[in-house]
């Protein structure tokens, strides 16, 4: 007899699932600005948050939305904003503030065609590098790329957990198509969902320093009102939180921001491998394209071609070692992406000389299809 907790099965749109995942993940503050194709997230948050004692606010612009969630997070709430390409560009400066001051927050970017206003209603994957390096200066950041409505729900919850555990912005990227896709999902019972809260500084810790890394390398957070009366600044700061010009303190601060995630890769990295064990041709793809690749790989296998799929779910930090292990026996890798070639550079630098790396790109506002990928697999297999 099954003792599994009850799940709720329903048909949900990707953007709706994102909002529901955020609520389930503990989000209690949302600030946003209307932008296609992400607006449904704000709309759903606006109706969900009051019922759970949370706050929704539509701000005057994208920049203000990003700033407001940082203020609310420093106040102690779990926070989120959602946007698309142009808005994501506008958020980069305050995203940098979140990086530098280590403010937990979740940013959703429903990707549309770019550059500029581009193609508001059409899918793209052109924000992979902006998500990684959009804000200036060296830093680590977590970027997740769910590929289905169910995964959007689960990864949004996980995004909050990662943001809180590692005091970092977490960006979720998915394509317009997935955002507006409606799929049947099984929502888990709330009591089965793992929730991670940030570590607060003990109110009675008189020696507390707001940027001294804890035993896990992550500094505890001062809760305003708890008596720590700390300073937070986007200026490069020492462990005491105050600006510093000392080279050794600057180096330590920047080392920390660049490398703080590395000891925790086992908790951060997630990826899916399909038919990888003996694969000669590996497709690397994320999101919607990975789903096309999954079908292409199955069709190739049915034709006797040893094809496999590597799908980063955590895009950044890039799951380098798992990919390298997979590529060791493979002769060729196809990087399929709906941009002019962004991820391919990352794959190329990890693939090794033995492996041929080929890009499969589409920049016409249309999704890459299974048959396109299959054709590419067949060409490489016959080479």
């Amino acid at each position, binding site marked *: 007899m099954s003792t599994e907790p009850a799940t709720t099965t329903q048909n949900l749109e990707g953007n709706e699932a994102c909002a529901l995942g955020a609520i389930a993940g503990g989000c209690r*503050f949302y600030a946003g600005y209307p932008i296609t194709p992400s607006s449904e997230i704000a709309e759903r948050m606006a109706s969900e948050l*009051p019922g759970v004692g949370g706050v929704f606010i539509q701000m*005057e612009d994208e920049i203000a939305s990003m700033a407001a969630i940082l203020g609310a997070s420093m106040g102690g709430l779990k926070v989120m904003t959602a946007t698309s390409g142009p808005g994501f560009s506008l958020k980069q400066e305050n995203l940098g503030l979140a990086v530098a001051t280590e403010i937990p927050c979740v940013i959703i970017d429903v990707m549309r065609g770019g550059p500029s206003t581009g193609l508001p209603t059409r899918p793209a994957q052109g924000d992979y590098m902006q998500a990684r390096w959009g804000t200036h200066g060296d830093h680590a950041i977590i970027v997740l790329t769910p590929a289905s409505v169910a995964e959007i729900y689960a990864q949004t919850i996980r995004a909050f957990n990662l943001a809180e555990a590692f005091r970092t912005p977490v960006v979720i990227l998915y394509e317009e198509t997935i955002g507006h896709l409606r799929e049947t999902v099984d929502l888990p019972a709330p009591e089965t969902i793992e929730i991670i809260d940030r570590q607060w500084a003990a109110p009675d810790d008189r020696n507390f320093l707001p940027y001294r890394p804890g035993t896990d390398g992550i500094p505890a957070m001062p809760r*305003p*009102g708890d008596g720590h*009366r700390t300073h937070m600044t986007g200026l490069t700061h020492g462990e005491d939180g105050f600006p510093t010009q000392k080279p050794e303190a600057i180096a330590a601060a920047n080392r920390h921001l660049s490398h703080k995630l590395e000891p925790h890769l086992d908790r951060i990295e997630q990826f899916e491998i399909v038919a990888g064990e003996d694969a000669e041709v590996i497709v690397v793809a994320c999101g919607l394209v990975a789903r096309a690749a999954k079908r292409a790989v199955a069709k190739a296998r049915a034709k006797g071609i040893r094809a496999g799929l590597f799908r980063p779910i955590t895009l950044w930090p890039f799951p380098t070692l798992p990919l390298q292990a997979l590529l060791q026996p493979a002769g060729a890798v196809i990087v399929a992406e709906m941009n002019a070639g962004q991820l391919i550079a990352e794959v190329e630098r990890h693939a090794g000389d033995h492996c041929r790396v080929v890009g499969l790109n589409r920049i016409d506002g249309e999704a890459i299809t299974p048959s396109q990928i299959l054709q590419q697999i067949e060409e490489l297999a016959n080479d």
Partner: protein
Amino acid sequence: MTEAPAPEFVIREYLREHLMPHFLCPGCGHGIALRALLWAVHELGITKDRLAIVSGIGCSGRIGAYVDANTFHVTHGRPLAFATGLKLARPDLEVVVITGDGDCLAIGGNHLIHACRRNLNITCMMLNNEVYGMTGGQVSPTTSNSRYTTTTPLGNFEPTFDACALAEGAGAGFVGREITLQTPALKNLLREGLAYPGFAFIEVISDCTEIYGRKNDLGNSAEMVLSQKAAARPDVYTNSVDRPFRPNQLRTGVLARKDRPEYAAARQRHLQSLGNVE
């Protein structure tokens, strides 16, 4: 029952003394404004633990760090937006924004307009020294006509921004202006703004002696603040001089005080009326 007299205001009790000496130039008015703010905080009995100061970028942005409170030094122009999130998340905090003419009126102008419109219970102290001091003295939205700055080498011809008129027009519940020379009056104005249940916008006419004053031969700090005093027209004179014969005179004191719904309270009432609230 008699109340114990309020302890005397000792500014050191509110400062992070280990950060002294401060970085402000000799003669800068920002320190006086900070003193007036902390004096008002003291008189209102706002504890340092409950005080949150959010500031942006520029000379004004740096003085928040000297306060022994919960201090947040954010991005250029964005302190009001950050403070909006902080205040909504933590209504128990007394949230004060310290900003400057460039931070608040240029890069952050949109946030000011909408902070005024929402009327969330935040106090915004804008230090107006007519110039971008931190970056070396460039023209700002409040630079007076014909003044020289590093980016108006031929003199400024652009119109100046009346920040208080903007704030009032955008709906701020409380608007005031004061010069630094009248420190007790500035303290009282800030005190009234802090106590006001809504968005309080207070413009402090500060002076940048080292860069702006020097470039324009405005004299030393004492001379600069005295000329500010000469230009000021306190609101107590309003009744006797309704139409100033010198229209460029600087109105000071409480310029607007309206009974408007405070944002968070209005939100709460709205949700309660729908039965949709905790």
